[in-house]
């Protein structure tokens, strides 16, 4: 098995579309948060959504999951328009969502948390595969979910969507607040997931983490995508990107 190199994005770019978001508007109550977001992700690609705090990246993922109060535009997942799809049917299209706040359940132990999300497709990782990838979780499988350290909780939040067979992963700030070794471990997990052919949308603040993993980067500001940068263009546009992100 060879690990896909992010820089040969040529192959991925001819792959069929896994997700296409067009003119997406989203609202929380009366607040209009997304103002026409457009982007697409091809099968097997890893793309990032970059942006400053409050740019609307989390809202974009939540809108895809139908977790906002109101949305309009178009969200096509695996060839199916999902704007009118009820929230509990989105996951069944093969979407796995790892929320920014992690969402580990306190009343469930680690293993129950892992087994909680229903299987949506065949071909998900087995519990054994997952424990092999995250040995810490195996050791703590009988502890209540929220007794884990921040890093372990993040592992758990990722691990539980790998079991379901989802092949489109929406990951929100998975490295936030974690120690460098754990960030590195998560990076290795993402490389393995890419090698398994998973499609990933990665919302990140930690650009140094995301840069070597991603095929393309989208830059968000004020509820819109303002720029798209491929991995190949990254070196010459790094300065510009830093300026936009304010890092």
């Amino acid at each position: 098995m060879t690990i896909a190199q992010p820089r040969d994005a040529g192959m991925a770019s001819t792959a069929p579309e896994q997700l296409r978001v067009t003119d997406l508007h989203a609202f929380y109550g009366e607040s209009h948060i997304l103002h026409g977001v457009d982007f697409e992700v091809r099968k097997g690609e890893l793309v990032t959504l970059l942006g400053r705090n409050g740019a609307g990246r989390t809202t974009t993922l939540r809108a895809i999951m139908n977790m906002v109060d109101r949305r309009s535009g178009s969200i096509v997942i695996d060839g199916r328009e999902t704007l009118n799809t009820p929230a509990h049917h989105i996951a069944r299209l093969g979407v796995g969502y790892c929320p920014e706040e992690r969402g580990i359940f306190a009343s469930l132990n680690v293993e129950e948390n892992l087994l909680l999300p229903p299987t949506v497709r065949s071909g998900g990782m087995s519990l054994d595969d997952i424990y092999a990838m995250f040995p810490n979780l195996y050791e703590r499988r009988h502890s209540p979910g929220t007794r884990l350290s921040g890093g372990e909780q993040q592992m758990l939040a990722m691990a539980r969507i790998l079991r379901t067979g989802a092949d489109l992963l929406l990951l929100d700030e998975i490295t936030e607040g974690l120690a460098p070794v754990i960030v590195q471990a998560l990076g290795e997990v993402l490389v393995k997931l890419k090698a398994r052919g998973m499609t990933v949308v990665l919302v990140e603040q930690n650009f140094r983490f995301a840069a070597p993993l991603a095929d393309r980067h989208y830059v968000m500001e004020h509820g819109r995508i303002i720029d798209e940068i491929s991995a190949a263009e990254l070196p010459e546009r790094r300065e510009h990107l830093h300026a936009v992100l304010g890092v």
Partner: protein
Amino acid sequence: MTTIFGIPLMVLFGQLLLGLINGAFYALLSLGLAVIFGLLKVINFAHGAQYMLGAFAALLGLEYLGLDYWLALLVVPLVVGALGILIERVLLRRIQHIDHLYGLLLTFGLALIFEGTLVNLFGVSGSSYPVPEALAGGFNLGFMFLPTYRAWVLVAALAVCLFTWFMIERTRLGAYLRAGTENPRLMQAFGVNVPLLVTLTYGFGVALAAFAGVLAAPIYPVSPTMGSSLLIVVFAVVVIGGMGSILGAILTGLAMGLIEGLTKVFYPEAANTVIFLVMIMVLMLRPAGLFGKEA
């Protein structure tokens, strides 16, 4: 005759048994309230009326349809539970996105409607439901006489409580319920049909109340108001136990029944208020309840 603190042992055990049986009903009812509150965040004020409907349905079923006790025990919770499902789908669901206080008001209104309708039809005086033949009589335990039906009530109520506890704490469906209680939106994002889960949970909680009603029919007078007086005490039990815990609801229910029974023996004047005194004490020392999680 053997006495303890000057009280004949037989009287003491008799009252403890009565207390335990009351406690079993407190446990069944507070369990249903806790399950409903967990997922719906609605304090189901119709719970007492739904318990009463269970007892009434058993009584009317026997009188008009010849529905025997054992069948009633099965059919009545299903029918009243189905009514609960209807209430959730048609009424509660429409107001779930606004303040949960409205759910409380709505269920309170429903309780008044159920009670009022039955008072109009049957009056307020209670009727009695015959003890099923197989459970008539009793055992002489030497220190006291144990009516078979009361022993049965205790066993049946505890069995249903434990079954519910097992379902919630040890099964996959129960894990959905616990997780849905914590974060329904994320559960939905995982592909769980949370609206359906909510409907079934309300139906189940209501069915528990109706089951308690059928169990109660042969020992308490069946009247339209039998639920409302009981519900006040059950609310106190729930406050004492804390809303958060299934096992807590069961244990607190039983314990409060026993405390009530003991008080009847030693200081009968306080028997009707002792639970409320405990409630006040608990509220002062542990506002989230004995088993509740401190917010």
